[in-house]
């Protein structure tokens, strides 16, 4: 598939690659409901004392992946709705890595099932997702291929460079562990540059120890080409429609090493703390459940008129209550300002200071530059004027404006026919829409609705339709 669409939003406040390790707080607020993981089956009761590494809850819809206690302590379920609050913490000090750790993993393919169990129990499996559904992959499943990616392009989520910094050894061992779980399936390693120092180091170390396909796929560093579904399509891994492709980010591979080499729990995340409102944007390593307000205190340029986003500005979620903690899937906190000043005749200005996907501002002649974005809608909600911006930005090649039209008139079958299922949920259509229509939200909802109400489209019907199309197009040509 040819790369198409995509657009880089160039926001100021990109995080530096420094990683600051935060000390464990006095209490943890661990969210039970994430974007993809719903830890709805509790394993602990009010007032229980847990030990580090114990399962607090499991996600029944995601192959019972557990939520692992990062520290020991007393559990409270009633303090914060939808959260497990842990107090009287007793966090084990992470030992410095063992100097006698072998550089490579001994070959013991017979224990693959045991290793998978270990990954699940120690909290490392949550990183492994099915590239088609973007949800947690089946720990017992057999993939057709695996994609390991170090590229994260959304502004701002944790940068691959920060996650892998000084961790070539861990990454290589993690890849070797991964390979021992598989049966010679291809592992595709996605790097921003296959010829840089980092890529060379990995190649040198891994040679002869693991089967790793380092093929060069020309891919621009444009958002959202780092998306797992798009990567699988770009690499040609989806051809039949029923392939299982695992996607593991670099953090997951490092977690594999931690779990399988050292048998340690994987309960910390390296997240980015960035955005225009952050004084010193950088990466931080935090325990899951670390309260967000503790992370942010003293690090923002101001405390009012801001919006804290869990994730990047395009697909992240609005953190309305900063008392909550970092969830297991969190990869970054982005802080934007909310608009307070009303600009006079803003729409009439030449617009050299505002970057746009369109060519309607003089900034078009300036090329790319970093700009300060607020949460302003920058316009008013209007009916679709069919400008086609969403179609040209869409990386999946679908027509959000046409789908919007059908969804507006409740024609779900038509939306399905227009391949709403191909949407990779990048959020760019909403970003560029001049009518400020929430296309992203509409498409995500429609995907769920189509899957629930309509199921798979009937194959024979489709072919009949195809025939019709050919006839129609023939007529059109004759006309």
């Amino acid at each position, binding site marked *: 598939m040819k790369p198409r669409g995509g657009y880089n939003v160039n926001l100021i406040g990109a995080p530096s690659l420094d990683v600051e390790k935060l000390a464990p707080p006095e209490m943890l607020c661990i969210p039970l409901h994430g974007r993809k993981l719903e830890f709805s089956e509790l394993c602990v009761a009010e007032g229980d004392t847990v030990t580090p590494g114990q399962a607090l809850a499991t996600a029944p819809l995601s192959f019972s992946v557990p939520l692992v206690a990062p520290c020991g302590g007393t559990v409270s379920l009633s303090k914060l709705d939808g959260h497990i609050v842990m107090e009287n913490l007793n966090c084990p000090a992470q030992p410095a890595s063992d100097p006698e750790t072998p550089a490579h993993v001994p070959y013991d393919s017979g224990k693959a099932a045991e290793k998978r169990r270990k990954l699940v129990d120690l909290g490392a499996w949550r990183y492994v997702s099915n590239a088609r559904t973007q949800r947690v992959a089946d720990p017992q499943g057999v993939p057709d291929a695996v994609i390991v990616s170090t590229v994260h392009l959304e502004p701002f989520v944790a940068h691959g460079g920060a996650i892998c910094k000084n961790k070539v050894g861990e990454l290589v061992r993690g890849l070797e562990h991964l390979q021992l779980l598989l049966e010679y399936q291809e592992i595709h390693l996605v790097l921003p540059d296959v010829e840089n120092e980092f890529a060379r180091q990995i190649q040198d170390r891994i040679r002869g120890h693991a089967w790793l396909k380092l093929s060069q796929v020309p891919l621009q560093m444009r958002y959202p080409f780092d998306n797992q579904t798009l990567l699988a399509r770009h690499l040609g891994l989806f051809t039949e429609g029923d392939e299982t492709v695992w996607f593991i980010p670099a953090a997951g591979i490092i977690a594999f090493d931690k779990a399988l080499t050292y048998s340690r729990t994987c309960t910390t995340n390296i997240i980015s703390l960035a955005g225009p409102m952050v004084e010193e944007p950088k990466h931080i390593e935090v325990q899951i459940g670390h309260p967000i307000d503790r992370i942010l205190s003293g690090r923002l340029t101001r405390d009012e008129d801001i919006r804290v986003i869990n994730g990047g500005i395009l697909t992240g979620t609005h953190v309305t209550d900063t008392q909550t903690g970092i969830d297991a899937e969190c990869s970054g906190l982005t802080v934007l300002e909310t608009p307070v000043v009303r600009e006079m005749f803003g729409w009439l200005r030449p617009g050299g200071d505002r970057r746009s996907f369109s060519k309607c501002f003089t900034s078009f002649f300036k090329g790319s530059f970093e700009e300060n974005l607020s949460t302003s*809608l920058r316009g008013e909600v209007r009916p679709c004027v069919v400008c086609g911006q969403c179609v040209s930005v869409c990386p999946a090649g679908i027509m959000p404006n046409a789908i919007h039209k059908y969804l507006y008139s409740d024609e779900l079958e038509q939306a399905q026919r227009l391949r709403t299922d191909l949407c990779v949920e990048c959020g760019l259509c909403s970003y560029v829409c001049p009518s400020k229509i929430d296309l992203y939200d509409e498409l995500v909802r429609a995907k769920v609705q189509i899957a629930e109400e309509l199921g798979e489209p009937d194959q024979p019907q489709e072919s009949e339709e195809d025939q019709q199309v050919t006839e129609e197009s023939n007529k059109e040509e004759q006309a």
Partner: protein
Amino acid sequence: MKFMANLLDKMRPAFEKGRFLGPMKPLFDAIDAFMFNPLSQAKLAPHARDPLDVKRYMSMVIIALLPATFASFYFFGWRMLPMIMVSYMAGGAVEVIFAVIRKEEINEGFLVTGLLFPLILPPGLPLWMVALGVVVGVLVGKEIFGGTGRNLFNPALVGRCFLLLSYGGEMGGAWIEPGGGFFGRLFQYETVAVDAVSQATPLYKAAADSTDLTPMTQLLFGNTLGCGGETSAIALIGGGVMLLMFGVASWRVVVSTIVAFGVMTVVLVDGDNVAEQIVFHYLAGGFLLGTFFMTTDPVSGPITSGGKFVYGALIGIATALIRLKTPLFEGMMFAILAGNMFAPIIDEVFIALHVRGLRNEK
């Protein structure tokens, strides 16, 4: 500036629901948002948005129309000004009434219609006719379909079509002799229509005798009889190129209209001055105005890229056919309206093809 903001803030409560001026809230909101950027925020992801909004998008079309508007002032005097004002006021009134009744916001699409409409009328037309035309255009062409974004036809053309069919005599006899010299008619208020003998637009003359072609320099510059904004080819090409550069007009429609029209003209014209006739037909009448500003209206045209080519070709071919093979000597308006009519069905076909193109993606 501060004063304006304060004034608007003071007035806002009077337009709240239940107050005396409550029903006029759409009008107040429109003026308020026109003056100052609203503070509304993105509620759902993405949390930041592109600066382009519909106001900006529509104002790009107005900017591109400015050269032609200026040319109309130069050639036909500042009578164009009351025409534009009447058009904005009468059409705006319809828009506001509908917004108030529907309790919706006032749409910016009207800003384009209100300016385009007087530019496609004979410059000597009585003002009440301008008002009537724009009211019918906005009402029938847009509002009864549900307003901006849902209209089937180009509202300005619906209004013009109505006037032409209802007041054909007046429409064909309200030409003004174009001004010349450094100031043209910039300081004149011309109401006197030219006498009946010289009442012949370039296309009318060419239809009667294919060798009687208006000189190309005159067509390029624009000092010929014709509708307010359609005579100056240079101004229209300049504006059209701007529109294409902004990415607001679709190049697909423009290119296919121009190519199809040229090919069809070659096929249909006879006489030994074929090349001259083709250039003449490109520059004369409403072809350029229609191609750059009417066919490219995204709402009344098709939404698929392939469909845009077919749509443009359809309009180009129809224009040439009407101009050269029917008693009507100008065909752009009917061709575009016909194109509008076919746009949904063209889309149907190309959406089906688009879906077929995606069948290998899993």
